[in-house]
């Protein structure tokens, strides 16, 4: 019963998001397509972070690194005249996975506050590296001369087509994370989060599994970076700023750590509230801040925990 209600709500919610371009076209408000594209890109980033944070207990405070890597992969290739979207996407994902492998290999040996600080430090290094790359825009960033080209398969210049591409990826990732966390692999990282000494004692060595999860999450977020730079058509090192990492972290916490739909919910509520409040007053943070604190204090499982039917894996 609960499961069915949950599934109906999920399908209803996704159906609503899928219908936004039609509704926006009807009311002649293309702005909302643009806004929701951005929201969904961050939902993808938050989904990927939730895999390691919510299920693996790895509080990465540097997840924006992969937004940056994905973005730079597209922009640097474009700068050199390579617009092929498949090549760009492959490089974005590959480079993100590789960077995640390096960062993860070091940071996963630590835990708690050290893990947070190391992931933050790595991302700050990448941020300053981005600033120092003068040939690729340096501090100011650079325009993307041309969006990724998928050879007629899909035209990213078409706002609605791009919207549905992002939507499809978001739903696919939502399902992928859902499957992963229930697989044998997912059980290992969740178990290690729950009770690490017990995991060792029954014969698990969680390190490689955690590292693999870290790499998967990095690669997924690299896709978000690929999409984000095509969305804004502009790349800046700010993609990797630590406040960006913090925002993604907050979306996960707001939506519900370790819940399947939470990160999407968190991204939507966070960014839409930001948008609505910013229209109202320039001091929107004064309202958003306390709201976030209230959710964290009173909704233990985030917004997803408030949904009837509940939302948890157990």
């Amino acid at each position: 019963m609960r499961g069915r209600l949950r599934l109906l709500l999920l399908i209803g919610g996704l159906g609503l998001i899928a219908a936004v371009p039609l509704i926006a076209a009807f009311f002649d408000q293309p702005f909302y397509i643009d806004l929701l594209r951005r929201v969904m890109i961050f939902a993808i980033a938050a989904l990927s972070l939730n895999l390691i944070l919510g299920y693996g207990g790895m509080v990465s405070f540097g997840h924006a690194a992969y937004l940056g890597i994905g973005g730079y992969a597209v922009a640097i290739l474009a700068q050199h005249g390579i617009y092929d979207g498949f090549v760009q996407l492959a490089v974005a994902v590959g480079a993100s996975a590789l960077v995640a492998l390096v960062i993860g290999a070091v940071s996963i040996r630590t835990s708690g506050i050290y893990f947070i600080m190391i992931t933050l430090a790595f991302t700050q290094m990448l941020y300053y590296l981005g600033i120092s790359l003068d040939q690729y825009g340096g501090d100011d960033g650079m325009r993307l001369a041309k969006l990724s080209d998928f050879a007629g398969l899909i035209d990213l210049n078409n706002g609605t087509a791009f919207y549905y591409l992002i939507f499809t990826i978001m739903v696919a990732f939502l399902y992928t994370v859902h499957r992963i966390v229930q697989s044998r692999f997912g059980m290992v990282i969740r178990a290690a989060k729950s009770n690490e000494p017990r995991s060792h004692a029954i014969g698990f060595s969680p390190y490689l599994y955690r590292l693999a999860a870290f790499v998967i999450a990095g690669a997924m977020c690299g896709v978000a970076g690929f999409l984000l730079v095509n969305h804004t058509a502009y790349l800046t090192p700010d993609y990797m700023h630590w406040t960006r990492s913090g925002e993604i972290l907050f979306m996960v916490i707001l939506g519900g750590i370790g819940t399947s739909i939470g990160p999407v919910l968190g991204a939507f509520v966070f960014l839409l509230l930001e948008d609505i409040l910013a229209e109202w007053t320039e001091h929107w943070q004064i309202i958003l801040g306390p709201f976030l604190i209230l959710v964290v204090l009173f909704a233990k499982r985030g917004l997803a925990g408030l949904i009837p039917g509940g939302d948890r894996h157990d």
Partner: protein
Amino acid sequence: MTEPLLDVQGLVRAFGALRATDGVTLDVLAGETHAIIGPNGAGKTTLIAQLAGNLRPDAGRIRFAGEDITALGTAARSHKGLARSFQITSIYREFSVLDNVSLAVQAHAGHSFRFWRAAREDEALHVPARAILNEVGLGGRAEVLAANLAHGEQRQLEIAMVLATEPRLLLLDEPVAGMGVDESQRMVEFLATLKGRQTIVLVEHDMDAVFTLADRISVLVYGRIIATGTPEEIRANRDVRAAYLGEEVED
């Protein structure tokens, strides 16, 4: 005479000036239940931590089934067939009882880089897990969240997880600690059913449990084994009575 399953020689572990394990030599024969007793602070926990691989000895060596395992970590020892329960119950509290045991089965069912199929629908995991739960008497509690079990049931669950790793040697660290009389009695009865089938090293404070279960007993005092023998021999040993049973030595 056959080689003992577990063969500990000259084990030393110091914490600063305190030699918590001070030259322990111990052998555990295949099939026996070997209890380790000793007063508080005798170094039982330090010893079992070294046997399980949580703590590295400063000197000495540990052989298991003819193989030197002194340098192996906990997970590697688990794969050699050495399984432990903890003094303070150690289970996955936010998982179901069945998931807890399935995880222990999974840990010994090859690598876990399997990303897609739901572990819970995997018969290779939950069929053996259910069989073990039935064996320890938790068959009816499979779907309950482990955190919601009574204390005694949680201890049973931990034993079930230990058994699910198909161990050749069980290291049980105070399995009846904190249990009520009834629970404790049930646990001892259950452990008695394992006797003969399993080799067990039992660290325990509860003397009723020890004398009911043990084939041999080693007495640890100040990091040293002062005596090893059958329960009758230990009961009659004057050194043991002096060091361990204290005031009763006058009788």
